């Protein structure tokens, strides 16, 4: 048990003997959970369901890495392998990454951070969870019936004409999950506009809220295009309506344009909330005001808007016109600038701070490192002449895993460790949190760095069997995946353990300044016993002063 945990074993909570039960104790029946309108309970429902999907998607990844440990395709058949990487992609993208931070932490924290009682539309919030579960179940049904083999990108005309698998069922699942995204996004937008506490102006908002606002705009604008695209694929597949298949008068590139018009912004749906998380954690543990707050907020908006205009960089060798490729390449370079600004600003935030390395901070620093590598390798594939060689190789696989797993999943775990005490009222064993952070960071690099080298040497992606010259690097990657898997399993145990342990968290174990820390841990159903105080500056951390872990009461610094 670390000093942080010891210092904050505080059975009195924030001392204001509040009569209202916490949101966790406000009804214990299954019914009380399944019919709840409380954003915090819905966040917990999401947390449980996406964890299930994370481990199903992870199981598929495990089998993929096992198969690739040897060059021959000797563990599973060609078709099974193809279904495994499709299941991995579909589940991880739509059923884990996209809802991960927004639907769990956004749901839980956005109202708390702006001093609201709930989201603007609590019933819609519950509906979005049911839609998510329904869509997820449909995808699982498709998997149980025999799976899909198109890859998560569903490229036509393979998906519409040539695949003998459960394409339509899976796409219906994706379609339904999409509506869950749209409703969540809509809810966040309205909430941030209308439910901010008095005095909480836009440029007093935590960057976490900014990031979720921008993410929500993308969700609402881009997801309908995905819905249209999935319906068109299903229509072409079932009714032979010629949209994408040239044999029926369609255009296969049209599919790619529509698909990436959603799926590229979707990358920012996955990474912007992660950036929001890191922007909360870094100043708190550096005890330092975030560097360049306004630039950070503008960078979020910049990424969200330019991110809509870069989709064609997935299509440099697809046959799209030279002019289109030139424009998309230039815009892809431009979208990297706000990302670079963010990395520089997080780093500068550490300058003259008073840095502690608790588990959340380790995850946040891990995020910065891995996101930097992911972003910089993005420049390689944005470079037209380089992309000709690198696209559809393991270089791309490594690149987007650095962003989406090294970035988003790392930040998801950072958020889990940072707000776990707030959500559950319990402290997890700090040492184990740090061990898991290091294991995940090391395991991740061992798994995915070799894949850059594979891609450089020309190893194509989605290959069940591969030439022998790639064996060593694939072996290294599979070995690293073992470490990574251990790192991911570990938190499952110590978090479960912490729920039963007696280590209660105070209202504010990390001495953070966000409004969400002004209420009890776990918060009451109505969120705040007293009207929260809007701080002058949400990141007004000060390096010297008393050890922040000993901050005795809620909102000590703010009030």
């Amino acid at each position, binding site marked *: 048990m670390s000093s942080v945990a010891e210092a904050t074993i505080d059975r009195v909570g924030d001392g204001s003997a509040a009569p209202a039960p916490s949101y966790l104790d406000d009804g214990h029946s299954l019914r009380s959970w399944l019919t709840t309108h409380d954003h915090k309970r819905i966040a917990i429902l999401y947390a449980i369901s996406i964890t299930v999907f994370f481990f199903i998607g992870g199981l598929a990844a495990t089998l993929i890495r096992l198969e690739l440990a040897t060059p021959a395709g000797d563990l599973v058949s060609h078709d099974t392998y193809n279904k495994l990487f499709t299941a991995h992609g579909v589940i991880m993208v739509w059923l884990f990454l996209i809802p991960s931070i927004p639907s769990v932490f956004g749901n839980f924290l956005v109202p708390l951070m702006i001093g609201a009682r709930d989201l603007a539309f609590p019933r819609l919030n519950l509906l979005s969870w049911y839609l998510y579960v329904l869509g997820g179940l449909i995808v699982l049904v498709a998997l149980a019936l025999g799976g899909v083999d198109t890859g998560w990108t569903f490229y036509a005309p393979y998906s519409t004409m040539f695949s003998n698998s459960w394409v339509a069922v899976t796409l219906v699942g994706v379609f339904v999950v999409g509506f869950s995204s749209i409703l969540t996004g809509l809810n966040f937008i309205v909430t941030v506009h209308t439910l901010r506490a008095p005095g909480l102006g836009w440029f007093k908002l935590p960057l976490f809220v900014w990031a979720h606002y921008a993410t929500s705009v993308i969700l609402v604008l881009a997801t309908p295009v995905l819905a249209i695209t999935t319906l068109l694929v299903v229509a072409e597949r079932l009714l032979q309506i010629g949209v994408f298949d040239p044999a029926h008068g369609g255009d296969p590139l049209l599919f790619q344009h529509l698909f990436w018009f959603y799926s590229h912004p979707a990358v920012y749906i996955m990474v912007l909330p992660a950036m929001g998380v890191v922007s909360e954690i870094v100043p708190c543990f550096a005890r330092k005001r975030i560097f360049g707050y306004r630039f950070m907020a503008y960078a979020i908006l910049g990424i969200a808007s330019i991110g809509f205009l870069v989709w064609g960089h997935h299509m440099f060798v697809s046959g799209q016109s030279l002019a289109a490729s030139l424009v998309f390449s230039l815009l892809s370079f431009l979208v990297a600038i706000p990302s670079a600004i963010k990395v520089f600003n997080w780093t500068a935030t550490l300058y003259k701070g*008073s840095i502690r390395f608790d588990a959340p901070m380790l995850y946040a620093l891990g995020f910065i490192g891995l996101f930097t590598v992911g972003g910089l390798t993005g420049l390689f594939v944005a470079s037209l002449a380089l992309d000709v060689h690198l696209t559809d190789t393991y270089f791309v696989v490594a690149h987007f895993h650095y962003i989406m797993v090294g970035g988003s999943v790392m930040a998801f775990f950072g958020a889990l460790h940072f707000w776990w005490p707030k959500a559950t009222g319990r402290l997890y064993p700090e040492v184990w949190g740090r061990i898991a952070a290091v294991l995940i960071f090391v395991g991740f690099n061992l798994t995915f760095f070799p894949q850059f080298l594979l891609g450089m040497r020309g190893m194509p992606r989605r290959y069940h069997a591969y030439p022998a010259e790639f064996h060593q690097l694939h072996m290294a990657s599979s070995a690293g995946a073992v470490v990574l898997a251990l790192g991911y399993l570990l938190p499952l145990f110590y978090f479960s353990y912490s729920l039963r342990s007696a280590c209660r968290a105070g209202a504010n174990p990390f001495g953070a300044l966000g409004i969400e820390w002004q209420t009890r841990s776990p918060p009451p159903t109505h969120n705040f016993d007293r009207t929260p105080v809007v701080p002058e500056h949400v990141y007004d951390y000060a390096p010297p002063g008393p050890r922040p872990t000993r901050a005795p009461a809620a909102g000590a610094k703010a009030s």
Partner: protein
Amino acid sequence: MSGIVDLASDAGLSWLGGASSVAPRYDLLFAAMVLLCGTVALGVLVAIVAFSIRYRAGAGRGDAAAGRRTRAIEIAWTVTPLVIFIGLFVWAAHDFVALYRPPADALPVYVVAKQWMWKLQHRNGRREINELHVPLGQPVRLLMTSQDAIHSFFVPAFRLKQDVVPGRYTGLWFTATKLGEFRLFCAEYCGTEHSQMLGRIVVLPPAEYARWLGSGSEQPSLAQYGFARFRALGCSGCHDPASTVHAPSLEGLLGRTVHLQDGRTLVADENYVRDSILVPGKDVVAGFAPVMPSFAGQVSEEDIQALVAYLRSTGAPAPGDPQGARR
């Protein structure tokens, strides 16, 4: 170009095994990116580690007032990447545009991809499956289409890749600069045996290539075969200059500027010919009635490629014009 090639080989990049005229340029840009991005990544890493040690809690070096005035710094690290990025974009775009400009004397090879094999045909009619023989030092231009799903023609040693799309032609040109055999992969996922859709490029000395090309059973050249199809399918019934039907002459069509009924103008390329055979109503030539029936379902992809080869043999301008589709 040779300057850049020399520069790249001077930079010691030949160990990367590039085997085309494109490869040294690619390797040079790649190496430059590794240097640049590596420096940035290392800089960020060093800064984080140094700050983490120097400003760790308890070191007592914290200063809340530091880093409050940020505007100048922010502008500096916004503008600096902007300038560098535009430079990188221009460099990479310059190399990329060259891929769209096949030399006029490039040897044409016609490629049809299907689940899960590559079928290739040379100008003299010689066919290959999953193997492509090319001469050293001579530009080769592939004209490719797919019979089913999307495939992608990927030769890592050449640093080149081009998707092969059903319903249209895409092009790819290269000059092999090294003798030997090089792997050909399908890089776009295309179904069950995607990972078995492999082939090789065999680069031969020109003389040996000529011998190889001439060997094998005697067969009509692709253009001759195309001419036979031109007659058998009835194309010549209308398009022959002697025909009484009012149809545009196809002699020397490829590369010619064509004025269309609806006022558009285009330069006739292989895709135009292909579309005109399969979807004749799409681009009707000005001054002609849209009376041509579609030949969709009656001609195979190989037939269409042969017809293209025949039309090209009727005295077209060289295929190297900038408007010609690479893709």
